[in-house]
């Protein structure tokens, strides 16, 4: 089966590691980082690249849903496979569940080397703010911007030496009076995607079929939700 990979540049180091370990030799096309901030742009770029790819049977999309960026994405002649994740954080932690559990502890802002290298990230925004607005205004802006976040969490994906970015992220956390932690990541979804283990954790779209809203949203537990909340409402009255 002729396969190509279309991936977000932010995940470059992790994809390189997963390719090395799985020994696959699929061609890779990277989409530049930072487009998720404008989902229409990211959508357009992904679709453009898919339309351009020829002579393959399947394209592996290494993206999360990234807002609604993936909504409506399709290929008329190639099968598309993508992980069922909201964004790249569950991809790097290994599952949506892992992200949810961490976020439940406290509002957590995740970082990786790829994020610091390729994205127009928070650290760069901080430096820009200092230059433009000065120390005191920047502190206020950052407080508003980080709002309910209490912790920076560096994901140790195994694809880069953590110690090279650790001093930078720790210092940044201290400056903003935030907690700082390192958590081990997991590239299991990368491996499964590359090795063709496309089970319920992946969306497999035959040619001509587009990513739909029902694919992005789980719609799970609707009945359970209604029953529980109805009970809560009754109790509140």
């Amino acid at each position, binding site marked *: 089966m002729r396969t190509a990979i279309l991936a977000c540049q932010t995940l470059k180091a992790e994809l390189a590691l997963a390719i090395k370990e799985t020994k696959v030799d699929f061609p890779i096309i990277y989409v530049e980082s930072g487009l998720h901030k404008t989902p229409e742009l990211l959508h357009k770029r992904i679709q453009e690249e898919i339309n351009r790819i020829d002579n393959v049977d399947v394209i592996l999309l290494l993206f999360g849903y990234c807002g609604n960026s993936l*909504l409506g994405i399709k290929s008329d002649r190639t099968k598309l496979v993508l992980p069922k994740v909201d964004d790249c954080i569950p991809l790097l932690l290994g599952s949506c569940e892992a992200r949810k559990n961490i976020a439940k502890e406290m509002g957590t802002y995740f970082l990786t080397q790829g994020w610091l290298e390729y994205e127009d990230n928070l650290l760069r925004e901080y430096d820009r703010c200092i230059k433009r*607005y000065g120390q005191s205004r920047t502190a206020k802006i950052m407080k508003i911007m980080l709002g309910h976040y209490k912790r920076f969490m560096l994901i140790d994906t195994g694809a880069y030496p953590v110690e090279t970015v650790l001093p930078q992220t720790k210092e940044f956390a201290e400056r903003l009076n935030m907690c700082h932690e390192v958590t081990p990541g997991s590239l299991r979804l990368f491996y499964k995607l590359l090795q063709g283990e496309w089970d319920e954790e992946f969306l497999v779209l035959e040619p001509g079929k587009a990513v739909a809203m029902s694919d992005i949203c789980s719609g*799970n537990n*609707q009945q359970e*939700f209604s029953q529980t909340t109805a009970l809560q409402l009754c109790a509140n009255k």
Partner: protein
Amino acid sequence: MLKIQKMLVGAMARLDETMVMNLVKQGLQMGINPYVLLEEIRIGTDRVGELYSKGEYFLSDLIMASEIFKEVLTLVNRDRVVTAVVSYPTVIFGTVEDDIHDIGKNITTGIMRYNGFDICDLGVDVPGPKFVEAIEQYNSRVVCLTGLITEAFDSMKNTITLLKEAGLRSRTTVIIGGLVNESVKNYTGADYWATDCTKVNELCRNILVNNKRIMQSS
């Protein structure tokens, strides 16, 4: 238009806080109606939004615009007794359950308060029943559900289901905001979707004042 008004738009668009504050002080001393000054500031903030859309400004600049706006409001209110020209019924806002993103919501509620709306902001990660309680408490007719992450779409949908179960859906207009579009609107069962504060402001004005529903456009 007076020179000071023109300069005010430009200073706001450049996010020059000192210049904006000085111009407002001068304008007030010259006896210019504070509403006229605030309107120039609003036009300036529209330009900030345009520059953000073009990628020339960043999120921090939007926050800065909102902060300058708040300071001007404080200054204007300190010097004169300013009351809203019109009063609208309370609009309920909240970031839905499982989501904590609220910058867009906060900017929108700030602008809407300036425009005379009473806002009940329930905060972030708000469970569905809290929205129902607030709508009942304030006898509200409009609720704005916001969210940025994919999980928020299901929370929006679930909240709207709750409104139906509580018998409130037919009298409540639901606007969703954040990373939303027509598909999300259809999925959640909301009435309208919006990705910028001006549109929410206009929607609420039309619904509450003109008592009309408008066609959704992109």
